[in-house]
């Protein structure tokens, strides 16, 4: 498991949010997958040198949508990928990112085709590579 977090205080993003975002990114990039263990709240707090309540808050948020699961007595694990949000809710959450991408992209003078191409490239980068056949 090549998963390492690094947080930086003094950023506009609160520390708990940085943890949430980095776990989600690691999952999207295939650096974390279902069933992988995560450090306990205490261990993660000492590793990152932050207040345990901050990590607990991040874990609560990640557990809320099933990204991670706490198994009593065993620890914290990456959960099974399941969609807890309705399609409409997922679209609502996606919209600001699409808006930003399209606005910024067009302002920078890219064509629609070029934007789609860049999305395709990024998705290919993030896709888990472990299924590759030798």
């Amino acid at each position, binding site marked *: 498991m090549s998963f390492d977090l690094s947080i930086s*205080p*003094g950023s506009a993003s*609160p*520390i708990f949010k940085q943890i949430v975002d980095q776990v989600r990114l690691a999952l999207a990039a295939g650096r974390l997958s279902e069933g992988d263990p995560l450090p306990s709240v205490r261990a993660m707090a000492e590793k990152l040198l*932050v207040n345990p*309540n901050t990590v607990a*808050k991040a874990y609560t948020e990640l557990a809320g949508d099933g990204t991670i699961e706490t198994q009593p007595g065993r620890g914290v694990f990456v959960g099974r990928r399941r969609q807890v949000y309705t399609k409409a809710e997922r679209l609502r959450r996606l919209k600001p990112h699409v808006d930003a991408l399209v606005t910024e992209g067009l302002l920078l003078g890219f064509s629609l085709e070029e934007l789609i191409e860049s999305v395709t490239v990024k998705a290919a980068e993030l896709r888990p590579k472990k299924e590759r056949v030798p």
Partner: protein
Amino acid sequence: MSDVVIETHALTRYFGRHCALDGVSLRVPRGSVFALLGRNGSGKSTLIQILLNLLTPTRGTSSVFGEDSRRLSPATLARVGYAPENHPLPASLKVSDVHAFQRSYYRTWDDALFATVLDHFGLSPAQKIGHLSRGQRAGLAMALVMAPRPELLVMDDPSLGLDPVARRTLLEAMLLTTRQRGTTVFFTSHLLDDVERAADHIAILDRSVLRVSCTMETLRSCVKRFALSVAPDAAAPLLVLPGLLQSRREGPTLLLTIANADEDVLRQLRTASAGQLEEVPLTLEDSVVGYLGDTKHQVSLFDRTRPSAEVA
């Protein structure tokens, strides 16, 4: 057992005609790492000294573990560890001397923990206190305050003047105390990066008045900054908005830092800026500075000095 470790009610202290603390009402929950912030001279140390009965209040009350600060019993004081500002320690003594002296006062004293913290700061018992660096003195103060395993640690600016390595070591020591369930840390600091790492509760004193007392999360989510393009002559109505902490003009842009902006406030902002309203990401430092004295309506020093510099 009560869930509030420190409680003050309308606490006020005058030094002569100078008001050092003005009606401060504060509650520190058990198990929190509570950072008390404010500029130099805002009343932080005065508050701490009143809590521990090192000063008497002019008015108001304070209690620690439910006991009035002015009548703290030895049993209650034994549950409190206090590290005063600047780590005053006798320069002529050795580390082992203060160790022996201090441990004789406590019923509980964890020698192993004391030794570990000393070692962590690169200290040895034979060293003379007068020869220690600032960081080492901070480390010794920390070891002395942690070893009795107090339920409440009160630390007045423990990281003052420390280099980055000593700061980090101190932060580790502070977070180590939270391993013991229910231990409360109440500290003052100017190092907001460390506060952001360590603290889960924040209070802000501005010129002897308590402006904020809430969780870190609440502070981060309730204080927001907006950027608007408004001509200087049209900005006046915005400068009296409820919750406005700070306004700052940067060229054609007006930056407003606002606490608890509700729909009504947002509507006024949108109207003033002809629909265009941008929320600017805010760091902890930005939010805290918004509450601190004399920053309400600002022109940056650079903007202020530019004209004369151009003339010269």
